[in-house]
């Protein structure tokens, strides 16, 4: 029945995108979050037995940016292999054990971490945590699976090269970060991928999967005592300390700089960026509210009002912050007909200037606050979403009290704060990439 609901459909609008995997976390609506410790490890837990499900998210610091410069694609390849056989279960046996017990375990990698997501039914918890322990502590990295996943990753590289938005984003990251690890593509290149060996993956696994760079978020039909046993059984066998390189901090390159990639089709896809404010910047919340008003709140943003509703120049337009562990970036995107793409960018830049020059009205600020604070509860209406929030706040380096204080911090932002944050926007010094029929300028 669920598989049936896949007919093509078209939605009214898109609500933005984020270049990093980090979620923008935003209140009071959160359920009670407990800290559960076992020796040197900590997990954040929301215990709720109203459904017979358990969701666990785990992340290890050291994502694709930690790939050695001549081995790009390594972390991504490792993440593809983490559920491809472990212990005495080769790939197929491992996958069958998951399927037989309705267990879902998958791994993915972003620039700053590798993340695992486990979902299981309470009744299969024993097998669920057993398979997780095997995957985490004894992945096999069999030659067959390595070859197969390299082919899959090679395909992913090709696919990203036929999507205008990802073509544009890859170029934007190169402009923003140059030769820094953040400027590289997580999947690597065909050449770097082809050169990776099983010994590279094993070494990377041994360096990354440890206890001191592990973040855990657990939600559902599980209590403190059981979680502590899981932490002991699954994660305690890992080394105490990771052995990953430090990623140097980097500032987003200053513009103006534009790049155009010609591509056939009716539309030009555009992405742009500049330096942003990090998660620990004193103006972080002012910036967050400012971005919501400008381009981050979907249908109620100024960019949507001006670019889409007033002029019909685009279907989706977005701006906001994409933060990484060692870099803070502000970025945005739009796609518009080749004949109107320049106008769309001009309107966006005019809105960036306007929000810096004219203070937002008290009414607009109040509306932004009730939107952001009210919306927060919507991020906690499913176990899967709650686990994502618990992990996101940890990865942002915020304390467990964040869930309770976040809305107060938003409510404390003043009109002057918003304007101060807006004055950091540099519409004349953007990095901008256009892919399509119109080369965009910043004149």
């Amino acid at each position, binding site marked *: 029945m669920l*598989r049936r609901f896949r007919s093509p459909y078209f939605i009214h609008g898109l609500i933005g995108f984020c270049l990093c995997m980090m979620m923008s976390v935003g209140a009071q609506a959160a359920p009670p979050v407990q800290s559960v410790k076992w020796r040197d490890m900590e997990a954040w837990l929301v215990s709720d037995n109203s459904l017979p499900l358990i969701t666990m998210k785990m992340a290890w610091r050291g994502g694709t940016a930690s790939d050695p410069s001549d081995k790009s694609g390594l972390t991504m390849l490792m993440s593809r292999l983490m559920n491809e056989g472990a212990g005495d279960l080769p790939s197929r046996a491992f996958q069958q054990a998951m399927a037989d017990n309705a267990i879902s375990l998958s791994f993915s990698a972003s620039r700053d971490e590798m993340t695992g997501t486990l979902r299981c039914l309470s009744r299969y918890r024993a097998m669920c945590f057993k398979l997780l322990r095997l995957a985490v502590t004894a992945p096999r990295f069999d030659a067959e699976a390595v070859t197969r996943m390299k082919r899959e990753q090679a395909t992913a590289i090709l696919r990203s090269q036929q999507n205008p938005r990802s073509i544009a984003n890859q170029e934007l990251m190169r402009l923003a970060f140059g030769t820094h690890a953040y400027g590289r593509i997580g999947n690597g290149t065909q050449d770097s991928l082809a050169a990776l060996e099983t010994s590279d993956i094993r070494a990377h696994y041994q360096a990354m999967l440890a206890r001191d760079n592990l973040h855990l978020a657990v939600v559902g039909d599980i209590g403190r005592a059981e979680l502590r046993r899981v932490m002991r059984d699954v994660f305690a066998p890992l080394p105490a300390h990771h052995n990953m390189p430090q990623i140097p901090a980097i500032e987003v390159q200053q513009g103006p700089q534009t790049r155009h990639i010609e591509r056939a*089709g*009716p539309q030009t896809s555009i992405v742009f960026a500049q330096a942003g404010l990090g998660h620990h910047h004193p103006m972080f919340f002012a910036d967050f509210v400012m971005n919501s008003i400008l381009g981050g709140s979907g249908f*109620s943003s100024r960019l949507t009002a001006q670019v889409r509703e007033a002029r019909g120049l685009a*279907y989706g337009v977005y701006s906001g912050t994409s933060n990484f562990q060692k870099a803070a970036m502000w970025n945005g995107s739009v796609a518009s*007909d080749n004949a109107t793409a320049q106008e769309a960018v001009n309107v966006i830049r005019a809105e960036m200037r306007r929000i810096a020059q004219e203070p937002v009205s008290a009414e607009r600020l109040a*509306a932004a606050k009730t939107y952001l604070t*009210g919306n927060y509860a*919507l991020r906690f*209406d499913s176990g899967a979403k709650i686990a994502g929030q618990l992990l996101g706040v940890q990865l942002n380096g915020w304390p467990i009290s964040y869930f309770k204080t976040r809305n107060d911090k938003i409510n404390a932002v003043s009109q002057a704060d918003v304007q101060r944050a807006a004055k950091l926007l540099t519409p004349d010094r953007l990095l901008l990439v256009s892919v399509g029929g119109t080369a965009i300028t910043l004149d």
Partner: protein
Amino acid sequence: MISSAKSFYAALICVCLLTACTPAPDGPKVGTARLANGLEIIVIPDFRADVMTHMLWYRVGSADEPKGKSGIAHFFEHLMFRGTENIPPGEFSKTVARLGGQDNAFTSYDYTAYFQRIAKDKLAQMMAMEAERMQKLIIKDDIVAIERDVILEERSMRVDGRPASLLSEKMRHRLHKGTAYEVPVIGWRAEIEKLNAADATAFYRRYYAPDNAVLVVAGAVTLDEVLALAQTHYGALQASGRPRAPRQVATDLTVAQYEQAEVLADARVRQPSWQRLYRLPQYQPANKRQFAAADVLAEILGGGLTARLYQELVVTQKLAVNIGAYSDSSRLDNGEFMIYAVPAPQVDLARLAAAIDDEIAKLQNAIPDADALRRAKRQLVSELVFARDSQQSMANIFGSAAMIGLSPEDVLAWVDEIDAVRAEDVQRAAQNFLVPAHAVTGHLKMGDTP
């Protein structure tokens, strides 16, 4: 006036597929009711968070469009956000946002749905706004012109700029030739360009009425609360008394020139791919067992890494890098069974297709083994259990089912239907549904020109 109200417990939590299935006491309690003006109501309580998903589903989709007006259903959906007698243009979504919620809408072949996700104490206001735009929308030429541009941009982004989407559009045009599904949901560009306010107004008057809609609320609310508020806000709307007209359904499933693949060669393609769509008979309650068997068949054939196609073509023969299958029978007219594959480098698409056909033949010539059958069933049923984690998923499942005439009981009975599928049923489904003459095969290739 409320003419009927009922609620029942359901058996979502039975993963005990090998033994007799006993409904677990903690299954979801889904409530249904109907107002005197015909508005149907489905309520799925979930009190884990103080929020709810309020959806209004209309029994009208792109397949109901007048000839030559393709795209009007989706276009009209956009106009529903652009102003009513009491809500100025642009204010609908802004009001929802100011109240701390988010809203959106979507259109498919058989339905159009509008929703808000918001704190539960805002339900009355959401209903008032949704009821307002059901019958007091203002459609003005200047707004229509702007929104048409937005939709052309949407078409450029989702279809015209993506060779893979263009190929799917061409394949479905051939697969469903002669029926409404031959036209893409978003519409043909040349026809979208001509849509106007008069078209939108006619469409609105014809289809937007309470007796053509289903209200679905999932979240921290009870059936009684929803009923009382629905009566207040939706109860006074006038019924149209005009359900949508039945559509032409293909009974002869043969596709013209089925032997000939639909080929799209485009310079923008970097990764070739292969797909096949089989036309299925129309879903009917009387033959629902064979569609449950089709779901199990899709799972055994292409439902993931343990499935036949993946193990045989990716792991063993190394002809493909990725492969899968699914069955989509949840439509009013003909359904589709899809197989898709990404070839390994240097593998010819014809050779890949031959290997896929071999796997299909195996399932047509022999029953699947007991382990594969059990695993496939468990995977399918557990998906529905996992779906309970999300109120939005639950609202979507029950709402979209209602659009093709399936009640919540029908949805929940699906678990038992899957449970009842025997190995012989899977073999028969492979024989009946995976018929070469009922299919269109598509090749996406690298080419010289866009």
